């Protein structure tokens, strides 16, 4: 089973909660996903619409809440959001996101590392969202993060594991869990990430914008389990030469 910062998870699918059509569909999608790690964002209360409240749908006993620092453009902003999240009662878990460029929402390696060092010092369980950069992953590991979260492709693109080769290197070197985050747009993408040895995947857009988010959540749950099972069972070798699946002997009767 997957263990991160001493906490054990039965499901290797982490779920983001953005962009769902309704709170009710979000709730049913979470259940269908079987996820035990749910990300949320922190935002100013909209005084014009105080009713809307995600905490109503999140059963804190069933899920670990993983607040993100989305919106932070540098280490200082990320640290401030992290402290507010903890004060809001989400515990010590934190998905560290530092994305200075709204066009790409890609992470800043330098600011992310700086923020990670401070937040680890303050006792957070830090899961940084990073580019698929093996050296940065090692530096964050040395800084004491709970896991690393390399991207498959840019957030919301559904382009899948474009960074496969680099992610394979990160996995081969990591002593902390590797969670592939961002861009996984189909169950096959999630299965692929798990087959190469990722410890978990985080999915949001592919599920929340699907025609039927609840069924898509279930589809990803199945695919993540399939990919992990295949990784543990051991995939057969690839080759360019065909190899018969039926016996090549005992055919004399048609010769």
């Amino acid at each position, binding site marked *: 089973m997957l263990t991160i910062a001493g906490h054990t998870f039965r499901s290797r699918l982490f779920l983001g909660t953005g962009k*769902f059509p309704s709170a009710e569909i979000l709730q049913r999608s979470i259940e269908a996903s079987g996820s035990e790690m749910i990300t949320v964002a922190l935002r100013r209360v909209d005084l014009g619409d105080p009713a809307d409240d995600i905490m109503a749908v999140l059963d804190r006993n069933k899920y670990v809440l993983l607040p993100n620092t989305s919106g932070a453009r540098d280490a200082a902003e990320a640290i401030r959001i992290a402290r507010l999240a903890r004060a809001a009662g989400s515990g010590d878990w934190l998905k560290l996101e530092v994305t200075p460029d709204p066009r790409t929402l890609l992470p800043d390696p330098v600011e992310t590392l700086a923020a990670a060092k401070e937040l680890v010092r303050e006792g957070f369980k830090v899961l940084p969202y990073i580019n698929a950069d093996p050296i940065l992953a090692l530096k964050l590991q040395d800084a004491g993060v709970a896991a690393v979260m390399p991207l498959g492709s840019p957030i919301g693109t559904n382009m899948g594991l474009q960074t496969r080769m680099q992610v394979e290197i990160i996995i081969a070197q990591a002593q902390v869990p590797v969670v592939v985050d961002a861009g996984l747009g189909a169950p096959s993408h999630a299965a692929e990430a798990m087959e190469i040895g990722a410890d978990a995947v985080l999915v949001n857009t592919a599920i929340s914008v699907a025609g039927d988010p609840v069924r898509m959540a279930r589809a990803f749950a199945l695919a993540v389990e399939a990919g992990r099972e295949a990784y543990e069972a051991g995939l057969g070798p690839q080759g360019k030469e065909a190899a018969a699946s039926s016996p090549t002997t005992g055919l004399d009767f048609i010769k």
Partner: protein
Amino acid sequence: MPMKIICNGKEKVTRPGISLNDFIIDLGLRPENVVAECNGTIVKREEYNTYLLKDDSMLELIRFVGGG
């Protein structure tokens, strides 16, 4: 006479000496689901009842929303 608070960037008028907890409830929010930053400092939830707002306090009320 009434007191002025800047809450989430908007001017709000309320009664003098109101506690942070009551102010949040007056806004129709559940205190346990809101985190408050007053004049740049986070207010611990257990202090919402005893924390009294002052005139011109800069208050930020933050909460969790869906996000990835």
